[in-house]
């Protein structure tokens, strides 16, 4: 990490975004997290990224391919041996989808029967059927979707957004990550890493049960009044130390950081306390049903976090790997039955609430995984990793709903019509938040880095 040599140096070099130091909130000290003006008028204030880790199958969920039924059991002409990640287990034999599709909403958006509840939001979704990514391997593909690069070490999109816009919340982190009940995806915390940026920009894992943020609460025997007594003396001493070193703004920021931490103990706990949510809400998010309780809780939390000014919330469905994620190598139907059931109701409930409160207008919801799945069969009834064409959908945040954008070929093998790269998606996401992906740069190791590196195009045709 060559930048920043010092905070001061960092600020000197960080460019225009930091011209407004006078406005710095006390949150991050030196204004690392102070709210900053966007480059262009924003359409969205927050992002909820529903990360379907493992690779949900586009041809079984949003991109119906009758040709796969027609060619069932036969080789398809487009498939190449080297497309298989799993080597010999994946054979060039087309596999028909086990699911029935129907058209939903006025726009007639195709959706599989696995999404009975999401279907009612069809006219809010912009379904991009022409996504493509660079790696057919979870680790690098996760890195690309999260950081724009298939190698480790780059800042994640939530870090870029926080770096670009600062934090809107005085009591909560700006970038929050919530994991599946199965645990973290591969790459672990590197998926929400600040990379070469300061740690202030990393995603803060937020747990749906127990302690929401690591080290949020003191050991059990330390009562709140005892902690307060300590903090009162600490505040006095740190104040004296800061007064003796008036040039060091860090010292004042430290004092405030303790007060914020103290408040965060209340506010984060308050935010995760769902006991006061009405019974009807708990039911809609499926909190009391085993299959939906975890993801439902995270969706409800995501809503509450966004309501409280959190900028970027990433929710993972699927953890660990294999069948515990959307990684349906062996039995696609069994896998997707489960993961769709876990997520369908909660996502629909989240969209319901965001619509009802009007927050969907300023909240960009993104759904998708790191890649899609092969049109040909693995082990007879599973599907292999496949990055050459897959589906993601966007909703809210100034995106046109009831739209299908782009297409794969007749087998769902490759994006052929209006292909959308991961950098295109990132550029669009930043644009909706008011950030110009070409202007949002960070100097490291002798060059200016971008989330979108040297490419990326804002998908103006899907903007409302």
């Amino acid at each position, binding site marked *: 990490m060559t*930048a920043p040599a010092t905070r001061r140096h960092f600020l000197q070099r960080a460019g225009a975004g930091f011209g407004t130091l006078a406005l710095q909130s006390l949150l991050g000290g030196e204004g690392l997290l102070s709210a900053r003006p966007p480059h262009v008028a924003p359409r969205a204030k927050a992002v909820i990224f529903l990360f379907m880790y493992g690779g949900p199958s586009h041809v079984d969920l949003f991109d119906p391919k009758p040709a796969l039924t027609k060619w069932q059991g036969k080789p398809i002409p487009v498939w190449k041996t080297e497309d298989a990640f799993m080597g010999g287990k994946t054979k060039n034999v087309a596999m028909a989808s086990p699911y029935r599709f129907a058209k939903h909403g006025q726009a007639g958006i195709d959706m599989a029967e696995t999404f009975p509840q999401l279907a009612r939001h069809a006219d809010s979704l912009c379904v991009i059927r022409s996504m493509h990514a660079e790696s057919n391997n979870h680790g690098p593909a996760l890195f690309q979707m999260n950081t724009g690069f298939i190698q480790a070490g780059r800042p994640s999109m939530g870090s870029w957004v926080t770096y670009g816009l600062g934090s809107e919340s005085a009591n909560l982190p700006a970038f929050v990550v919530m994991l599946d009940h199965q645990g973290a995806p591969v790459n672990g915390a590197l998926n929400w890493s600040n990379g070469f940026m300061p740690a202030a920009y990393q995603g803060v894992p937020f747990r749906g049960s127990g302690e929401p*943020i*690591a080290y949020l609460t003191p050991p059990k025997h*330390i009562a709140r009044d005892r902690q307060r007594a300590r903090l009162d003396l600490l505040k006095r001493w740190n104040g004296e130390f800061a007064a003796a070193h008036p040039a060091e703004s860090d010292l004042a*920021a430290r004092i405030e950081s303790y007060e914020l931490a103290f408040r965060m103990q209340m506010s984060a706990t308050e935010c995760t306390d769902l006991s006061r949510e009405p019974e009807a809400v708990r039911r809609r998010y499926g909190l009391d049903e085993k299959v939906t309780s975890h993801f439902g809780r995270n969706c409800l939390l995501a809503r509450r976090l966004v309501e409280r000014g959190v900028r970027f919330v990433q929710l993972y469905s699927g953890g660990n790997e294999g069948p515990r994620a959307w990684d349906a190598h062996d039995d696609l139907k069994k896998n997707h039955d489960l993961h769709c059931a876990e997520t369908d109701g909660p996502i629909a409930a989240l969209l319901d609430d965001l619509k009802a409160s009007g927050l969907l207008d300023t909240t960009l919801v993104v759904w998708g995984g790191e890649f899609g799945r092969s049109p040909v069969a693995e082990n007879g009834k599973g599907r292999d990793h496949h990055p050459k064409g897959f589906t993601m959908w966007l909703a809210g945040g100034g995106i046109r709903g009831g739209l299908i954008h782009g297409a794969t070929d007749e087998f769902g093998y490759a994006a052929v019509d209006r292909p959308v790269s991961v950098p295109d998606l990132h550029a669009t996401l930043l644009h909706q938040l008011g950030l110009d992906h070409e202007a949002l740069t960070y100097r490291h190791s002798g060059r200016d880095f971008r989330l979108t590196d040297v490419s990326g195009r804002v998908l103006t045709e899907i903007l409302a």
Partner: protein
Amino acid sequence: MSGAFHRLTLAAALSLGAGLSSWGEEALPPKVARLFTKAESHWAYQPLADAPLPELTAAAESSVRDGIDRFILARLAAAGLSLSPEADRATYIRRVTLDLTGLPPSPEEVAAFVADPSDRAHERLVDRLLASPHYGERWGRHWLDLARYADSSGFHNDLDRPHAWKYRDYVIRSFNEDKPYGRFVAEQLAGDEVEGASEETLIATGFCRNGPSNDDNMGKTPAALAQYRADQLDDVISTASTVFLGVTIGCARCHDHKTDAFTARDYYSLLAIFNGTQKYGLVPGTEDAKGKKVPTDRAVQIQALVETSPQVPPTQVMRRGLASELGEEVPPAVPAVLARTVAPAPAFPAPAADAKTSGRRLALARWIASPDNALAWRVLANRVWQHHFGTGLVATPGDFGFTGEEPTHPELLDHLARHLVENGGRLKSLHKRIVLSATYRQSSAHREAAAAVDPANALLWRMNLRRMEAEVIRDGILAASGKLNRQPGGPGIKPRLRPDLIPASQRNKWPAIAQENDSHWRRSVYIYAKRQLLMPMLELFDAPTTTDSCAARAESVVPTQALVLMNDEFVEEQAGYLARRAVAEAGDDPERAVRRLLALALSAEPAGDRVDEARRFVEARTAETGDRLAALTDLAHVVYNSSDFLYIR
């Protein structure tokens, strides 16, 4: 797997024809040619200046303790400034002890130094610290940041690297031995080629193996493996070039460097130097070249990068960095612009008939550390200065190129670099000069008038106030509580994490520990660096993420730091131990226990009303709860969280 790599690259090279048209220097594209011209006058590429020590006015003259001070004083005088007065002895000994060993001095060491009437007291102190084995643990840690050291592979499986710690211990030993820099460079880049190659020097090549890797999960096709090998070599040469030369040649992998005079051809010529290497020492659990899982007992007990043949496969430019898009063949070479401006290019002759390796990496290492290579010595001298003062004379220590910062004191930088060259590349004598200088010995106190002229303290009119680095905080807490276990070396330790953090990394899992003990209370440099799950206490205080070389840590302030220091069981428990220690050493008298506690944490009793305030706090808490030890624990906890403890004055 390395054997498979070897064959692969050859096959790839033979089957794919050259594509990029070749161009010699005379045919440089105009943009590159302009950058080459610019390089000829670039400050970092000039020979080391031998400027006479600046003349000073009589007033300034009286402040001088070392030639170093003359360079600082001359710049200060020109700005109408002067050095601050010398820090008091208690402040100085805490500063220099933390700086050279990463551990605080004991109150007894402080008292003895303060009372030492000798005018050589400072020098004797510094000699003792430089001879301490803790010096290597402290300064070796700085090197481990550069070497992106970790104990796991990162990526998908975050595999254990059971022998990585041997490199960490090698680095610590090398600093303690005051190893000549040239030898240190050669061992790390070419430990299999150096004179007297041994297990120790092979371990040193762990430098080239520390980066993240994905050996067991990078796909199985030849194309994927060829690309993976290219990516792994990229990690080596990008790291080595920024660490040893302060150049960012990694940027030239896909295209000619946009802002520096490095071409893609330079990049691949550097790659050619490493292109005969293979990974040596397999990781248990991964697959070898034949696709068999490596059992633990068959794995070589070190992690190295070596050549096993003098023949190196041909190296070709890869367009856009893609192993599948090969261009012209390139010979091994150091970057052309550096050969032209910095030091004459080394020869890479065909290996002798009886050679065991190509000798290319050794030639590179010798070129880097040759007395002529002003760039490399400047980079090193700057790193030494940076860690003593918080900021280098060049504020971008990993980038001495056109877009890096220029030195604030170019003549001083050259003066320091010359000192290193003249002293065989040993660091300790330079440390000694710096920490005994008047510049280093000044107070860090604020001066309004000077701050008005130079608010950033770029001219060093005072010592910089610095926050302890992550490891120093944890080690300092343990040193004060008396629980620090000073045992050096060996496999990484895994202290307690809150159990709900552990699922954040599913592979190579961190153990759940109910209670920490002596075995966990070792210095933080010995903590197992797991890429997918760094210790929050270290990570939040800006310890490097280990994915690439870290030349300068940030010094951030975030609320999650406060959470961890406020709430971590470690801090709570150690505060309890510090309270008990204070009582045990001071006896039952309440005020003496308070005084002892403060002295143990801060190395000396604080001035002013702090003691009184602390005593009143403990009395009030005791009155409230009836538990004096708990009240002292509260005090200890406050001190551990205080800026007085965490900032080095």
